């Protein structure tokens, strides 16, 4: 078993809609270890995305305790969470969310700029090769297909060598073949590079390709 990277105890995230309180994540205990490839599954509105957002420090928690690499981040301000994110995590999203004014190469190098590092041609070249976009590096996102955009997003997420890759419905905008290719890539990254992956999906066929599956309903883990 790998080292613990993320440890959540009684993790709760509550939203208030008018007078109603909604526990999107409800009292969850969960651990992410080095080398895990975990699929978070469940129907729409079950709390998959909120769980990933809170574990990935994109959102604050309402109660409970959350540690990342041994550091308690439960009460951290957004300014400090930024540092935790950029030193530990990479993210990919359903809508790819590439910066439309930047080329593929510039999008991939963007996290390096935020880390205060200059663009490393060797590293970006390796990333482009890894995701098969070497020939498309000077193209703008609007000139790419959905699959290519998502591969560029993966390269961007991996450029800083994160400890955990969070993927929220990464195949939501892709066809079956491209979705399968995406999961094959995750599998390869996990097995060959030892990358820890946490992926939210409602597609059972894809989810089954992960090492671990957790099922979530109404913000609670019902099966692990």
């Amino acid at each position, binding site marked *: 078993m790998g080292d613990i990277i993320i440890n959540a105890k009684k993790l709760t995230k509550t939203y208030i809609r008018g007078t109603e309180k909604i526990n999107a994540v409800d009292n969850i205990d969960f651990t992410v270890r080095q080398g895990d490839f975990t699929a978070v599954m469940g129907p729409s509105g079950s709390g998959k995305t909120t769980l990933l957002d809170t574990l990935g420090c994109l959102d604050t928690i309402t109660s409970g305790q959350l540690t990342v690499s041994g550091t308690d981040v439960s009460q951290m301000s957004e300014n400090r969470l*930024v540092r935790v994110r950029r030193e530990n995590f990479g993210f990919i999203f359903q809508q790819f969310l590439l910066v439309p004014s930047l080329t593929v190469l510039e999008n991939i190098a963007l996290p390096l700029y935020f880390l205060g590092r200059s663009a490393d041609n060797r590293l970006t070249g390796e990333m482009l090769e890894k995701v098969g976009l070497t020939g498309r590096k000077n193209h703008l996102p609007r000139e790419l297909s959905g699959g290519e955009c998502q591969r560029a997003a993966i390269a961007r997420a991996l450029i800083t060598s994160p400890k955990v890759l969070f993927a929220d419905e990464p195949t939501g905008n892709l066809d079956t073949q491209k979705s399968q290719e995406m999961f094959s890539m995750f599998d390869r990254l996990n097995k060959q590079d030892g990358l820890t992956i946490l992926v939210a999906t409602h597609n059972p066929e894809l989810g089954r390709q992960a090492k671990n599956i957790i099922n979530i309903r109404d913000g609670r883990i019902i099966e692990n």
Partner: protein
Amino acid sequence: MKILKIAYRNLMHKPVRSILTIGGVSMAVAVVVCLIGFDAGYRQSLKQDIDKMGYQLLVTAKGCPYEAATMMLQGGGGLRYMPQEIYKKIITDPRVDVVTPQLVHSIFDPNDSEGRGSVTLFMGVDDSFRKLKPWVQFKNGGWFSSSDANEVIMGYEVAELEQRVAGDKIFITGVDKVFTVAGVFERTGTQDDGLTFMPLQTAQKIFSLENKLTGIGIKLKHIETITAFEEDLYNEPSIQVISMAQVKGTILNLVSSVRVMTTAIAAIAVFIAVIGVINTILMAVFERTKEIGVMKALGATKYQIFKIIWTETTIICLGGAVGGAILAFLCSSLVGFFLKTILPYSPSGNIVIISTLSLAATGAAVLIVGSIVGIYPAYKAASIRPIEAIRQGD
């Protein structure tokens, strides 16, 4: 990758909007630069015009000083006359260096200018005119052959307009006499370019204004005696004395209302440009909320986001400053022409002078204002919470 590159690429992602905003700032900058240029140019041109007159004091018949001031500079009609004895009295004063008598007369020719009619301005002068304005050169020909010759010397523009050279004969309507063109002056850049000169005695005779003058230009030996000299002349009941400093002040007062108007226009232009910049950047921030959220998810700090958005504002303002400077250079003559049409009096020459200092000062002011107005949209962007931005519209 540098912050400047990211900001530039972001702006160029919506090129039309960015260019229109830069255009708005450019217009405002150009208006401000031209206004500053007008203030400086008008004063300079007026000073040049007055200096080129060669005298420090002008004596005219009693009347409205404003009328006298503009008459003196424009050689207009409807003039008042004073007896020539005044001239004879002034010339004996030991404090004076040069005294030049002038008789201005206008003749309207209804058949000129393709039937629309035109006014020709004549000025009777004597030899002292040359002493007072030694810099005036002849393009061709020379001075009058005698003090009562039927000869004229044409100002540069009049000669160009009528295609005259020395030796030509001209017929003067109204007095029904033929005159010989003795000479044509080189361009002086003053109202003299639009006048036709003739010997003072001849002018007094043909216009039936014997022993009459419209003005006497006086240059003193020592400028420090001017106040005492003026006071002495105030005792003369039929004349008034106008110093060039007074003329300058009077004319600047006349144009001050125009300056207030143009300043108000410039202020409105700047205000609209500032609102335009804020609007453009805020729209860009609003449209790119998700993008900014992703940048934060990827590790961008508040300060880094602030810098990107603030740099975009600065680029717009910098582009506007450069564009405005170019526009001001290109349009200064046009603005000068427009202002001349609405001003009560405008001196000859360029009344809008664009200086490097005014460009630098306006450019710096635009950048400072841009930097300040850029704070709000940049702060808004920096304050975006990543999760809310990313999930927006989901």
